[in-house]
Structures are given as structure tokens and as C-alpha cells.
């Protein structure tokens, strides 16, 4: 390595190649799942306005996923401060390769989806935007590094970029109406200006951090800390180790999911009050969007709640502090699971109560009349709310149990393996089977998947029981809970049979995952604690 740029690029690639590959798969997983399902049902219609909305959302998911991976791969800028290089050089050779990777990933993903599904995703516009947006967000993060302004500044920049992107797909106040197929000269000028401004901001921010200057706090942070302290200060003793550990779990991780729900709902409310102010949209977004948010947050919440690693290293391996608590694995796992339950429950209540009070009740009682309201809202609320809770619980706790193993390779393998299997099945069905055979094949896959879920859950319970990590009452209670969920599913189908049998069997199998964490969590914890 003869030059600084070469060294920095080599470091980025060698450090993060697998992670970036994983993030590419993660970002593409959702479109692959959705488009595969739609194609199976023969409902793939890229020209439809719903597909434009879907593209607009999915492209942002991809951008966020890969961008997050890239930002983590860039690592702390402070590690480069001691190098004999100008700040502008360091910034340029951190930003440029990251932007190039971001753009290439977006282009490759869009091209691949277009080739496989024929969905007409535009290549250039979103890819250029993603690269520029990454530079703007990273620059803002460097500017506000280690200050309380960071989340606010990043939120503001992301919102501004989101608004600009939205205008490329039609009017700001409407759903996206067309694809961003042509990058105009003005688009190019805007993107260049944002990139140039980002570079300048980044150089300024990094220079300031490099010489040790800090942001003025204006007392806001100290005031916030005083307020939160006076609210949470409790000098009394914990009544038991379990009480202390519960406090620890909630303070460290538990509040994250409810906090995210509040934040997203407030942002949504702000966006709605600025751009729409249409009651129908408010109700639909609060009700339907909130349910989806609960499940998506489960992905984030699971990783947070299952994190047992130290705060000092990029490792999920359990740190000495937690590992040396004089507490059995079974008890520690119970407390972590209880913390997950509190977190998911609080997040759900924070969404479900406003959803009921502000949407379902006013419409049902005729307080407001909205003839064009999506009928799904009024028809489904009695099962939609509990299903959102069960879905969020299942996603959160299963992912938390996986994270609790402290083995990133396992997560990596499961994710990649699942993705590869899904892709393989899709390709096989697409190219090797006739239309009739496809239906039978996918039914078989669903039923097989369901069987695997049930078998895996049974195995987990057997292992946990054999290692005395759970008691017999837990096994029976879990079985009862699963039976109750199945009974609920059967009752719904008897009253209103909407789902095909194969889908019902698949859902029944997946419901086993709702109780799997009762055995999986202590096993995962024990596996992480003692290696």
C-alpha cells in the first residue's frame, strides 16, 4: 500500500466485505419475498400505482439497510486522526468509496430485481440519490459526533432528503405517481450541491473533532439529565437480585422499542399535519401502518433486547460484567424474556390505544363519517390488533434469542442460508415447474416449513428441559399457549374461511415460534455465557 487512499479503500473492503454482502441480501430480501409472493399469485403488475408506492418504500428500505452496514463498516473516524494526512484527504477517501459502494449496490439490486421480476425499477436516479444521501447523513454524524444534537441533526437531514426524494415521484402531498426514470440536469445539480455541501460539512466536523473541540451544549443536555434523573432517582435497595437485573435490563434495552414507537408516531403525526391533514389518511396510517411498524420494530428490538455483549467492542459475546452475575442461566433468561415482554407490550399499547381511540372508536360510533375509508380497518380491528401483538412478540423474541447466542456467524449463516434457500426454491419453481406444479410445490414448501418450525420448537424444548433450564410447567404452559393460538386461528377460519389450507398450516407452524423463545432464550444465553 503506497498511498493513503489505497490504504483506506483496502481497509474498508477487507473489513466489511462480508457484512456488506449480508446487508445487500438483507436489503433485497423484502422485495424478493414480496415480488415472489405476488408472482406466485400472478399479481405482478409493475405499471400499477401500488407497485410504484411499493418501489418507493422498498428502495428506501434497501438504502437504509445497506447504508447502515456501510456506516458501521466505516468505523469511528477518530482511529484515523493520528495518521499523517490532511483531514480533507481522510474525509474524501472515507466518503468516496462508501458512496461508490452504495451506488453500485443500489444499481445491482435494481438491475437484478428488474431482470428476475421485470419490475421496472429505475436504475440511475435512486442509486445516485442513495450515494449522496449517505454522504449527507455521514457528514452530519461526523459534525455532531458525541453530542446530544446527533439524533436531531440526522433526523432533520434524513427528513429533508426524504422530502426531496418524494418530489421525484410526484407531488409531495400524494402517493408516488410515477417512477423516477429520468435524472434531469436540475436533479444532477441538486445532487452535486448536496454532495459538495456534505463534503464541506464533513471536513469541518472532522477537523473540529480532530483538534478536540466540542459542540456547545447550551445546558439542554444537563437539563434533560436532571429531569430524567429526578424522575428515575431511587436510592432504595433492590428487593432481590431479580429486581436489580430487571431494572438493568429495562434501563439498558427495554425502553428502546416503546421509545421508537413514540418517535415514529410523532414523526408520522408531524408529517401528516404538514403534508396531508386528511382524516382518512390519518386513520389508515395509524391503524395499518402502526401494525406493520410493530412487526418491523420487532427486527430492531430483537437485536437490541438480545444483545448481551459489552459496550466497548463490536462483539455480541457476553461480557464479563453480565457473565459474572451470580444468577443462574434459567433465571437470567426469564428476566430477559420478561423484559422483552414488557418492551413489546409497552410498544404495542402505545400504538394500540391511540389506534383504538383515534380511529376505530370514532368511526364505529359515527363520531366521524368517512365513506372512503379502507373497509379493512373496520372489518379487521378485532383480530388485527392482537395479531400485531403476537407478530411483534414472535419476531422480537425469536431474533433476541438468536442474538443472545452471541454468535454473529450463526445469524449470518441463518440469514444467508434462508436467503439462498428462498432464492433456490424460487428459481426452481420458476424454471423447472409448470403453472399447476408450482401451486402444489409451494403448498408442499409451506407445509414443510410449518413442520420444520414445529419440529425445531419441540427440539428446543427437549434440549432446554434436559439441561434443566426450564421446568415442566413451562413446557405445559407453552403447549397450552400454542394450542390456544391454533384454536384462535381455526375459529377465525371456521367463521370466515379466507386463507387456503396450506397457508393455515404454515401459520400454525409459525405460531410455534411464538412459544419457542421460552426454551430458546435460556439455551441461547447458556451457550453464550459458557463457551
Amino acid at each position, binding site marked *: 500500500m503506497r498511498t493513503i487512499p489505497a490504504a483506506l479503500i483496502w481497509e474498508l473492503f477487507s473489513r466489511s466485505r462480508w457484512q456488506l454482502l449480508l446487508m445487500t441480501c438483507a436489503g433485497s430480501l423484502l422485495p424478493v419475498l414480496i415480488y415472489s409472493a405476488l408472482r406466485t399469485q400472478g399479481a405482478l403488475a409493475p405499471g400499477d400505482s401500488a407497485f410504484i408506492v411499493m418501489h418507493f418504500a422498498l428502495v428506501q428500505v434497501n438504502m437504509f439497510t445497506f447504508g447502515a452496514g456501510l456506516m458501521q463498516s466505516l468505523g469511528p473516524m477518530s482511529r484515523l486522526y493520528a495518521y499523517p494526512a490532511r483531514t480533507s484527504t481522510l474525509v474524501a477517501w472515507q466518503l468516496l468509496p462508501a458512496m461508490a459502494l452504495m451506488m453500485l449496490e443500489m444499481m445491482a439490486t435494481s438491475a437484478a430485481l428488474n431482470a428476475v421480476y421485470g419490475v421496472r425499477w429505475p436504475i440511475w436516479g435512486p442509486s445516485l440519490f442513495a450515494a449522496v444521501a449517505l454522504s449527507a447523513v455521514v457528514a452530519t454524524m461526523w459534525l455532531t459526533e458525541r453530542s446530544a444534537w446527533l439524533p436531531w441533526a440526522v433526523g432533520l437531514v434524513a427528513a429533508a432528503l426524504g422530502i426531496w426524494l418524494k418530489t421525484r415521484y410526484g407531488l409531495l402531498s400524494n402517493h408516488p405517481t410515477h417512477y423516477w426514470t429520468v435524472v434531469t440536469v436540475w436533479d444532477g445539480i441538486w445532487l452535486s450541491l448536496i454532495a459538495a455541501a456534505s463534503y464541506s460539512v464533513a471536513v469541518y466536523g472532522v477537523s473540529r473533532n480532530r483538534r478536540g473541540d466540542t459542540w456547545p451544549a447550551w445546558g439542554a443536555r444537563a437539563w434533560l439529565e436532571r429531569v430524567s434523573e429526578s424522575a428515575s432517582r431511587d*436510592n432504595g*435497595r*433492590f428487593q432481590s*437480585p431479580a429486581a*436489580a437485573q430487571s431494572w438493568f435490563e429495562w434501563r439498558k434495552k427495554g425502553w428502546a422499542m416503546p421509545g421508537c414507537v413514540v418517535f415514529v408516531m410523532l414523526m408520522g403525526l408531524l408529517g401528516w399535519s404538514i403534508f396531508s391533514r386528511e382524516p382518512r389518511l390519518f386513520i389508515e396510517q395509524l391503524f395499518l401502518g402502526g401494525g406493520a411498524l410493530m412487526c418491523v420494530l420487532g427486527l430492531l428490538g430483537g437485536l437490541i433486547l438480545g444483545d448481551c455483549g*459489552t459496550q466497548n467492542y463490536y462483539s455480541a459475546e457476553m461480557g464479563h460484567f453480565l457473565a*459474572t452475575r451470580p444468577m443462574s442461566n434459567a433465571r437470567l433468561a426469564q428476566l430477559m424474556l420478561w423484559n422483552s415482554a414488557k418492551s413489546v407490550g409497552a410498544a404495542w399499547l402505545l400504538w394500540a390505544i391511540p389506534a383504538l381511540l383515534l380511529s376505530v372508536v370514532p368511526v364505529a360510533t359515527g363520531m366521524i363519517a368517512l365513506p372512503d375509508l379502507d373497509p379493512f380497518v373496520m372489518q379487521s380491528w378485532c383480530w388485527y390488533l392482537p395479531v400485531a401483538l403476537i407478530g411483534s412478540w414472535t419476531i422480537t423474541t425469536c431474533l433476541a434469542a438468536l442474538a443472545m447466542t452471541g454468535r454473529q456467524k450463526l445469524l449470518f449463516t441463518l440469514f444467508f442460508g434462508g436467503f439462498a434457500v428462498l432464492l433456490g426454491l424460487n428459481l426452481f419453481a420458476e424454471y423447472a415447474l409448470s403453472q399447476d406444479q408450482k401451486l402444489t410445490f409451494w403448498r408442499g414448501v409451506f407445509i414443510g416449513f410449518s413442520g420444520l418450525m414445529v419440529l425445531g420448537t419441540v427440539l428446543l424444548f427437549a434440549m432446554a428441559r434436559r439441561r434443566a433450564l426450564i421446568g415442566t410447567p413451562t413446557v405445559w404452559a407453552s403447549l397450552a399457549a400454542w394450542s390456544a393460538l391454533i384454536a384462535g386461528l381455526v375459529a377465525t377460519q371456521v367463521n370466515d374461511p379466507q386463507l387456503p389450507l396450506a397457508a393455515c398450516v404454515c401459520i400454525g407452524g409459525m405460531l410455534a415460534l411464538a412459544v419457542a423463545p421460552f426454551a430458546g432464550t435460556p439455551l441461547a444465553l447458556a451457550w453464550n455465557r*459458557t463457551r
Partner: protein
Amino acid sequence: MSDPFPSSAPAVVHISRVTRQFGTKTALDDVTLIVPRGGVFGLIGGNGAGKTTLIKHILGMLKPQAGSVQVFGLDPVANPVGTLGRIGYLSEDRDLPNWMRVGELMRYTRAFFPNWDDAYAEELRTAFDLDPQAKVQTLSRGQRARTGLLVALAHRPDLLVLDEPSSGLDPVVRRDILGAIIRTIADEGRTVLFSSHLLDEVERVADRVAIIHQGRIVLTAPMDEIKDTHRRVTLRFGQSLDRPPTLVGALSCAGGGTEWTYICNGESGQLRRAADALGATVVDEASLSLDEVFVSRVRS
């Protein structure tokens, strides 16, 4: 010399033929070690010798691939409550939750240990000059070590385990740590196990020492015995020699011509008799520091 059963006192830690591999690297190779109750046990070794791996086995964070570990007569993996409840531990990386305040950390840790001594904790906090409102994240390296030491000591553990406690710390903090070790053993029957590669510290406070090198215990003995039985002897021979003659108990040798200096393991009388047998005169004899013993043992 490498007697794995060095004391008649009941063992606090009993490690028997433990082997541990990480991939192709053998971190511990058939290690047998007993830490008797009472006193200070120093575990010394170079970087990567296996000290932390051994300590992790004692804490139940690693399961032996072969052999067994017992702490207070219990398996630390199967019974973490029974073992960890009697251990105070300060890790090398001072793993403490950054988001907690010092006062919160004390309140939280107190819940786990019925023997937590509030007065002693407060005494330590004052002595270590720790602000209970300070966030762990904002503490300096030395303050962090002191905070870790406070929560490890305040429940008056039967076994205090310190993994490289002085690593990277200034002399004042190092003195605090040594003071804490001395205070702990002042309590009847308490035991300190501490690993270090700062041998002057070990020499000052340890009663017994185990030297670990490349995953093997190469020496276990009381400190006095080590000093008594390791000597530097300079011999003068009647004629110039190209290579030094073999001396019983010699660990290493340097010199040339008629004068050769040996680092030996043996008592003074035995060494003199061995020198007489070679026809040499002892021109100088001195006891060794632990540092010299360690280097000679590791190199031999």
C-alpha cells in the same frame, strides 16, 4: 517443584488436567493447579500465556474441553450462583456498563450479594475519590479500575480474582489495588488470585506463585521457596572452556573462557557440591528476583 498440591489448606480452586483449544491454538494444555484457601496467589505469564483463559474457566465462562474445574468444591458452570456469589472479580478490560452512574452501579451490585457491606463500600468510594453521580462512561481508566475494584471488594468475597489489575494504570491506582489486596487478605481465610505480568507487584504481595507459559504451568511454589531455590552462581574453571559443563539444576548459562554464570534451580549446598564435582570454584552466588526466575523458566 511444580507440585500441584502445594498446601494442606482446603482448596478454593481445584483445576485438574484442564485442556482448552481455540481452533488450532492450544490455550491450556493439561493444566493442573490448586489455589489453597487464604493468602495471595499470583498467576504470572507473558501475553497470550493462558492466564485469562484459566481465569475464565474459574468463573465458568469457559467449559473445559478436558479435565475439570471446581471452585469452593462446586462446578462453576453448573452452579454459577454458588460460586460467583462468593467471588469478587475485576476484569482486565474493566467491563462495566457505561450508561450507569457509580452510585447506581453500587446499588445494583449490592442486590446480588447478601454480604455487601455498605459502610465498607462507602469507605472505599471515599478512599478512591469516586463521585456517585459520575457516569461510568466519563471515568478515566484509573477511575474505572477503582470502580470495578470497589464493586468487587465491597461484598467481602471469599475469593478475589483480579485479571491483570494494574495493566496500563498509573502508580497511584496500582498502589490502591495492592492496598485492596492486602486489605482483603487481612480478613481471615480470604483468598486473592491475581494474574499479572508486572512481576515486581507479584513479588511484593504474593505468597504463592504459578508460572504459566504457552498454556502449561511450568512452576507452582510458595514465593519464599522460589527465592530460596533459584540462584545465580558464577563458577571459575581451571582452564578455558568453549562450552559450559552441565551443572545439575541449571536452567540457563552465560559467559565464556574460565568464568561461566548459571541460573540454577537448587539449594545453595547442593549447587556448591555440584560445582566441586566439576572442579570449579564458586566466585559469586546470589538469589534471584522473580523477574529473573520467570525469564529463566520461560526460556528454559
